């Protein structure tokens, strides 16, 4: 069975990756892309060798769509898709405010369309192994979780908007909180109950935080910190990292999702690393295709996205108030 999928907006840096995966997928008819910025959309359509369509035309012909817009207009795109009964995979974070995230979840429910969030880490093989070990009881009862999801600041400039609050809705907190929070929620089944944030800006000329250090507790009373800063120097040898250490009463799990690399030195280009492990985005897209085919929830659902947006909101609130902020469920 084949499904028709399209891309809504091409603002996001992941657009190209999704476009090539959709084009190559044997069960997918890639109907094309649309964009609120027609010129950018036309150019992207040409680059990815697909059709540029008006939003209504795309949504008429698609079973599902991936929202690759700037963060602050996710809601507009999801609402349009829901109106046409089109299933949605939305870039992360689901929204930049809790209000928008709730509205997105509600409209998809009302329209009876499936809603997923672009969260690749649950499709990382090392992360899957970590979950299997956790569920097998290898570490006993969880006590401590320590995560990192750092990145090059330089990548924020690729799209022209990732560090511009009008479009991104914030800085490193908005961008780099949800991946590891999602991983912890997915592996342990626990929720974040309290968030304390230390935020700062270390790079000149930046109007948002690039230092994002969060100290949290989980519903099971474990402690959990996450460093999601854009702090890797330009000359660091990789785009960033995604790690999680879970310590329990009987052992510990250490997962470093991208620690399968070659080290490469090129004349005039310095040293970098080349990843050779499995690519989580492949699994993410496969899951969405199957969700559309069978009308089931994607692995990371809109409800997950909403809960993770609440952690972002709590982090900003903690930064403002200078104290820990509780999240009620």
């Amino acid at each position, binding site marked *: 069975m084949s499904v028709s999928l399209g891309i809504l907006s091409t603002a996001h840096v992941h657009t190209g990756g999704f476009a090539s995966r959709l084009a190559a997928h044997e069960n997918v008819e890639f109907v094309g892309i649309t964009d609120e910025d027609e010129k950018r959309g036309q150019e992207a359509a040409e680059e990815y060798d697909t059709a540029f369509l008006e939003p209504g035309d795309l949504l008429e012909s698609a079973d599902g769509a991936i929202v690759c817009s700037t963060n602050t207009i996710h809601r507009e795109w999801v609402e349009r898709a829901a109106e046409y009964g089109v299933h949605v995979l939305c870039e992360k974070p689901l929204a930049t405010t809790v209000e928008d995230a709730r509205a997105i979840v509600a409209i998809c429910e009302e329209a009876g369309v499936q809603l997923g969030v672009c969260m690749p880490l649950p499709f990382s093989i090392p992360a899957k192994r970590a979950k299997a070990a956790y569920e097998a009881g290898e570490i006993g009862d969880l006590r401590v979780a320590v995560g990192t999801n750092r990145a090059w600041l330089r990548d924020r400039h690729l799209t022209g908007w990732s560090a511009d609050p009008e479009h991104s809705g914030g800085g490193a907190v908005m961008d780099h909180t949800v991946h590891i929070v999602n991983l912890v929620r997915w592996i342990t089944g626990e929720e974040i109950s309290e968030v304390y944030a230390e935020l700062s800006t270390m790079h000149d000329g930046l109007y948002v935080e690039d230092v994002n250090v969060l100290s949290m507790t989980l519903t099971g009373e474990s402690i959990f910190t996450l460093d999601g800063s854009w702090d890797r120097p330009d000359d660091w040898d990789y785009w960033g990292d995604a790690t999680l250490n879970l310590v329990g009463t009987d*052992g510990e*799990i250490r997962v*470093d999702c991208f620690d399968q690399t*070659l080290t*490469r030195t*090129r*004349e005039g280009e310095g040293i970098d690393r*080349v990843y050779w492990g499995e690519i989580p985005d492949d699994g993410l897209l496969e899951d969405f295709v199957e969700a559309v085919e069978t009308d089931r929830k994607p692995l990371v659902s809109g409800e997950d996205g909403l809960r993770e947006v609440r952690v972002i909101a709590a982090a900003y609130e903690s930064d403002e108030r200078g104290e820990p902020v509780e999240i009620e469920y």
Partner: protein
Amino acid sequence: MVRIGLLGRGFMATVHALRYAEMDGVCVVAVASPSEPTRFAAEYAPDAAVYDASVEMYDKESLDAVDVCTPTHTHRELVEPALERGLDVLCEKPVERTLSDARSMADAVAESAGTFMPGHTLRFFPEYAKARERVHKGDIGSPGTARTLRQSPFDERSDWFADDEKSGGVLLDLAIHDFDFLRWTFGEPERVFARRKRWDDHEYALATLRFENGAVAHVDARWPNRPDLSFHTRFELGGEQGLIEFDSEDVSPIEVSSKRSEPARDPIDEPLEKDPYRLELEAFVECVRSGREPPITIGDGIESLRTALAAIESAETGRPVAPEEVSA
């Protein structure tokens, strides 16, 4: 359903049997080994018929293919009768202990309706395949140097490994992985010079290879009788424009330490969607189904064998040996 007859009951037979069990449309219907594979079959292929004699298995079972995971020096006598019966064959590396036996197998392949794939698994390891891809895409410019390390410690092992006449020692059994990878990546070697050291139960070998393109490789292969050491691989591929490095000790995407853990049943467990052994078996099964030429041919197996035999001859004679000089 692709019906496989598995030959052997050792380490590699275990690795293969566990993976066949996970694959769709494939079944190990029989296992043969002269040393009563009943126990092995009960644990890893419970539905398989059990034979002491492989030829009896070929004749009594309705097989599509055989997978030969037996000691190196037994390959020809097991493979040729299979090929004569038109069966497809996957055969562990090295293809044989001697060049003449391997050539005889190649003749049998040429005359058979069946296909033959040597199990040079390293070609399915993504770290090695990615490095080769980057070299071929020009990341290091034209190749100049290579260093490889392969350390495979053991505690107890089957006697045939220690018998040079049967296994060919560390140069033939272990270093051949890197010889094959280097041939695949850099092209054919012009000459090989090797030294070998054995003491107590340890065997270490150091080989230098000079390639037709001028590149020089250093291959370090180690069989320490030191179960406390780790299995360790490393490589560097250098050229006039760059360098690619890999060290298995630096790779640690997932670690679990637990008071509750029990030893894993699978002796090799790579954190990949499908590990290299699974990919190798899938590639073979695909050839069985489609009748297509395998991605690794008997010709590759023979050239890599020749490189290893040249290294052995060099270690014995103390002079550089060209693979084409190897005759037996």
